[in-house]
């Protein structure tokens, strides 16, 4: 799965958490979950759980703390998939 495919999957995961339709449609690597998509910070843990399930990976607390932008999130997903993910 390449970066574009990961971002596409990520979009479907994030969709229910954001009401910022315009920002959501123009999502790219630089998109910030809190400032751009106005996601409630309490929901970040739910997004991480959805990502774990979707990509069949487990995300540790340190990695989770970095996952505030699309770019950082994709990097975490890629590294976890490389480390024993499928």
């Amino acid at each position: 799965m390449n970066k574009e495919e990961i971002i596409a999957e990520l979009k479907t995961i994030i969709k229910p958490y954001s009401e910022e339709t315009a920002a959501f449609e123009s999502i790219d690597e630089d998109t910030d979950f809190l400032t751009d998509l106005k996601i409630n910070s309490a929901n970040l843990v739910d997004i991480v759980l959805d990502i774990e399930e979707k990509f069949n990976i487990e995300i540790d607390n340190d990695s989770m703390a970095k996952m505030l932008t699309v770019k950082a999130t994709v990097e975490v997903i890629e590294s976890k998939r490389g480390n024993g993910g499928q």
Partner: protein
Amino acid sequence: MISNRVVITGLGVCAPNGIDLATFTHSIKNGISGITHQPDLETLGFSCQIAGKPQLSDEKVAEYFSPLELRNLNSTGIIYGVIAGLDAWKDAGLEKSANEEPDWESGTIFGTGTSGIDKFRWAINKIDDMEIRKLGSSVVVQTMASGVSAFIAGKLGLGNQVSTNSAACATGVESILLAYDRIKSGRAKRMLAGSTSDSGPYIWGGFDAMKVCTFKHNHEPKKGSRPMSATASGFVPGSGAGAMVLESLESALSRKAKIYAEVLGGDLNSGGQRGLGTMTAPNPVAVQRCIKKAIENAGIRADEIEVINGHLTATTKDALEIENWKAALNRSKDDFPYINSLKGLVGHCISAAGSIESVASVLQLSEGFIFPNINCEDLNPAITDLVDQSRIPQRLIYKPFNFLAKASFGFGDVNACIILKKYHYE
């Protein structure tokens, strides 16, 4: 000192025999029961396998919650409370606060006994299975006692007091009185008062184990809840929510709101678990004192009460309750007010009982009817010794009247009584 008159301008209900106001009104007038057989209780070996539970479709619930909220929603009490609360707000002709500014003049006191008991069970199992990480963000907001008032306040944008009260089965009447005090003293213009109670085996199990629920009517659910009957053999557990918008008379008149009734006053007290009072039994001295103080607080005379909506759960305590009313109101056998119990139709809705029954009480006053008691064709002789059976209507009576007393009593030996008056436009 500010002392506003307080009126009721909106009603909402999510009850076993009606999940909207129109259906509920039709059901109480026609004696339609919401008690049904519960297969899960039978499977789990409950003694009492019947209960009152609002019949909600997924489509109905989706009208009140966002898709994201629905994803992990596992708190029946919050669902019932939000439906009743938002319906009451709409019924009062009020809007959700659409802008960024909270509605500082409006708040809510929305009670419950427990919150999200199914959600709590799910979370406990996850934790014990070493899966704490999987709880996500939805456990706290659904299991905190104040979850229901928090959900409602967020949806309406309420900016005044937002809290949850808890006084066992007296919760619903207590929430009305707390909201009433806040408006009366000028600290809020409008308060949504209500209460809710979860459904299901984990909320009802404790009562089943105490043997306070009937086990004799599993084959005939609609006959099971029998307040004031000689064959009353314990209550039938129920669930749901009731809500009402309380508002200063000035505010209601200025926006030309429909006024259902006026809250004249009431009282809250406890028997202190002294005398005959215990954790689970009421101290009659306190019950009578609560009723008397409520009437005094309302500024009327005891002989003006025309209708009583009782607590009357269908246990052996029903006769004692009637005796307490009779003593508190100083009435004879023949001039006792009309009395009815909603529990024959919906069961004992625990922490929601007081608010669902108060909605029924307000409807009676507002429309001028007295709903029929069901399942007491065999009235308890201990009750007919106290009051004439004509005082316990078993058929719908249409009759305009002015004063109604509603009381609820709860575990912990706590009591709550409110006095309602029909509102006459001047």
